[in-house]
């Protein structure tokens, strides 16, 4: 472990994980002296019966649910946030519970800003006015899959994102009744996103033991449980372990600068309406191959996390970084058949790669040069090795 240079790390969220975790929400709400939460969830979840289980967890408690806003689909728009905020004010709620992943949590965070700051213009915070004080209590209950952004301090509404330390959820509840996934694709996508975030955090240039610790345990959980989770998406214990990995990866990712894989995947997803997870699965191997090609240092901890101590001790020191990369590729190979390997399979038109690279490198604040982004994209497009 090197001597840590300057770093900052914040994890605002209290995490409750395990059997009957949701039943603790009323107690935690008493801690924030809130008794009437607004629940934001998606139409699919409320139809799948998970919301019935969620409501059952409030039996014999002093909590009345101010309303179940279940209009969120797969896009977080300002219209939805305004409707939910109107419901929040109408019912006089005092806290927000987001049940689900990605868009639901984004709408919940947007509602939190609207009601806490008592405003209707959300986008002035996106254009510079800072969030100054703590918002209303926000509880996140992930379900089935995860977009990796639930626990982070970023909110993405109408394709615009805002990062602020007041946007961390106050409480994250991982309950084995909610975590089992319905389909293998959804597990594949969530694990790939977590893997990309964790590897991105582990290999960042700034060295921080905190990020190291989170990324390490995220990778260890993924290494142990990913293959089983893909075979049996409904398996309760594995899905709970994987959800812990998603949480760890998200927290490591939100404290580290965004990796190139994440930036490119978000831009590609916006240009082609295909989910970002699929692009991360395609781009990750080529990003690492690109780093090896440019002789950038890949820390041995990657191999240590994925392989475990005895294998780590058995391999000679100079091969450990390459072995780490191979172990990641081996894990990704487990996704054969579930996710396309090259962008050609996804039929992404080649002429669009130019401006995607430009947008991604601009968003990374020039940490990644446009040329690097373009080369990784081109290699990923044709599936050509370095």
């Amino acid at each position, binding site marked *: 472990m090197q001597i840590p240079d300057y770093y900052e790390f914040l994890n605002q969220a209290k995490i409750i994980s395990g059997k009957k975790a949701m039943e603790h929400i009323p107690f935690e709400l008493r801690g924030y002296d809130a008794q009437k939460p607004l629940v934001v969830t998606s139409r699919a979840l409320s139809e799948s019966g998970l919301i019935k289980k969620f409501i059952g967890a409030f039996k014999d408690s002093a909590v009345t649910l101010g309303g179940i806003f279940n209009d969120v689909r797969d896009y977080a728009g300002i*219209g939805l946030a305004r409707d939910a905020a109107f419901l929040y004010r109408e019912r006089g709620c005092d806290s927000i519970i987001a049940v689900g992943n990605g868009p639901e949590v984004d709408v919940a965070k947007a509602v939190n800003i609207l009601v806490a700051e008592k405003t209707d213009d959300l986008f002035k915070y996106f254009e510079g006015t800072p969030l100054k004080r703590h918002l209303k209590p926000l509880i996140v209950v992930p379900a089935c899959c995860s977009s990796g952004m639930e626990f982070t301090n970023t909110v993405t509404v109408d394709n615009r994102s805002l990062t602020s330390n007041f946007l961390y959820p106050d409480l994250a509840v991982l309950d084995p009744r909610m975590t089992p996934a319905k389909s293998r694709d959804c597990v594949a996508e969530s694990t790939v996103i977590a893997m990309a975030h964790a590897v991105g955090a582990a290999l960042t240039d700034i060295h921080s033991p905190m990020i190291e610790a989170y990324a390490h345990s995220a990778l260890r959980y993924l290494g142990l449980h990913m293959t089983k989770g893909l075979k049996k998406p409904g398996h309760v214990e594995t899905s709970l372990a994987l959800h812990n990995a998603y949480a760890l990866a998200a927290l490591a990712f939100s404290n580290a600068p965004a990796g190139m894989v994440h930036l490119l995947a978000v831009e590609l997803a916006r240009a082609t309406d295909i989910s970002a997870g699929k692009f991360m699965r395609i781009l990750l191997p080529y990003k690492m191959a690109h780093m090896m090609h440019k002789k950038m240092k890949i820390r041995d901890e990657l191999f240590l996390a994925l392989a475990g101590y005895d294998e780590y001790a058995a391999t000679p020191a100079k091969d450990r970084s390459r072995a780490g990369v191979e172990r990641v590729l081996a894990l990704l190979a487990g996704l054969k058949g579930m996710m396309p390997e090259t962008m050609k399979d996804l039929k992404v038109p080649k002429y669009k790669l130019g401006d995607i690279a430009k947008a991604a490198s601009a968003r990374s604040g020039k940490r990644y040069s446009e040329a690097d982004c373009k080369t990784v994209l081109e290699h990923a497009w044709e599936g050509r090795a370095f």
Partner: protein
Amino acid sequence: MQEVIGTNNRMLEIDLTAKKFQVTEVDKKDRDLYLGGKGLGLKLLYDRMEPGLDPLGPDNMIAFTMGILMGTGAPCSGRFEAITKSPLTGAMVTGTCGGPFGMAVKTSGWDAIIVKGKCSAPTYLYIDSKGVQFKPAKGIWGKDTEAAQAALLKEGAGAIVIGPAGENLVKYANIASGHRFLGRGGIGAVMGSKNLKGIVARGNEFKIVPANKKKFAKANKRFFKFINKNPITSGSYRSFGTNANVNLSNASGILPVRNFTGGSHGEAHKISGETMAERFHTKYDTCKPCAILCGHRGTINGKEHHIPEYETIGLMGSNLEIFDPAQIVEWNELCSKYGMDTISTGGTLAWAMEATEKGLIKTNLKFGSPSGVSEMIRDIAYRKGMGNDLAEGSRAASKKYGGEDFAIHVKGLEMAAYDPRGCVGHGLSYATANRGACHLSSVLFSLEAYLGMASPYATRWKPFMVKFMENVLSAVNSLHICLFTAYAVFLEPPLIKLTPVPLIKQLNQNLSLVALNLMDVSLWPELWHAVLGKTYIPYLGMLKFIKAGERVHVLERYMNTREGISRKDDTLPRRFLTEGRKCDQKEHTVPLEKMLGKYYRLRGYDANGIPKKRTLKRLNIAIQ
């Protein structure tokens, strides 16, 4: 004046980069399988273009096809087709236009023109029976469509030109020919990207004579009789033009109001065809030749203007909550001069107004007030300020600024002026139409909402009806003949004429398979076989004609899936899947998922919407 019997199958392939052209022959098998017009154009591009290329790059090609009915005297046969890969949707787009250019090219002896490559400097093409001349367009580059058109028409009978919008690669720029337009999908931008200002054809060098004159005359006479008897083509269209639909859409609650939130509006009658006919004492101003005469011209505060079509009135009028016809005529004039598709412009402006209302973007556009609209149209055409983003279309603009849930488009093409929540079958047709949210893919809203021949909210037989109508209309677009003749051909044969409408509705509701197959659409194939001199077998000929339509539709779908289109794109804007219309207490939404799976099975697509190998083989489409 030489004579052409039937069709001479001559084609011009123009390479703009090398400034060379080549005369080739239309393959007999293609003519038989794909008829002409839209079908032939798609097949020509299918053989020459490989997928994944940049629509605004030099490798993209435009195919102009004339169809075999043109010049023969058949009713409403003055329209030509253009096919290319659309910069707006990234998929194939086919458009039709009734301007004089088609007739001029056909009477110059050409059945189809294919343009590829890119000119180094702005040029325009001069076409006559001998071939093509490349002429510098420095003088007319930057001019609006009317001025450019006037300059080109000195050299030939018909011309197409692009306006400043096409030159600035506005994604929904259109092509003008006379006062008619090749509107949708941004074909003008493709010509702009090739530095091609326009094409003029000398015309009047050949006379087109049908091979079997006697049979052709008989069928033609029956066609004219049907058109002049049908209440729609001879009644409401001839007197009020397509704007006869404004009151009908308003009454049936499918008129787009305030970016498709409301279905009807109290003041809608102010912009209806009837009011405009009275106020502007309209005269005919149509494609030539036309038997229906639906286009109109009127004097508006002293000057002669073309009366806008229903789509323009819907999208730039009620959709922006503007109910002053003179104002809409002015905007329609602006869009025509700059060469921009009024449907996409109206849809994008409506999105911009709602985005401003919700704080996503800063513009002075507001629903109900015309302030700032003309300036914004100019900014879009010259890509200035916010106009530069709006010129990319409402999909790209909503991706950049957010508001995707109220960007009303499918696959990037802005939606036409019919709210699918009032005719759910047409909602399915919007989702599965090959070029995007197009109302002409299967004109189901007229069966469901206008004519009451199917119940608007039922979903049971709708996938079958959409497929049947898509096949027939694709075949009609491959003749080519104007789609409005469909009302005469469908509704006039004795079988349909005599059964009362409610009975047809019950039939369509429960036995749609039987009802639709009883439709006698033999008039079109009869004309086709008469012109080419082939023998027409009464019932089998019609089935072969409809199968050709299916082949054309599935080929276009197959070409689109190679560009990445799949089930994820066959959807509707979230507004139609989640919210009800303001004018509808029961708040109906479009139950798309219930119909899409069945539609794919009927079409022979797999679960992801890709045509199966078996289907392609059955329709003998060669797999590349």
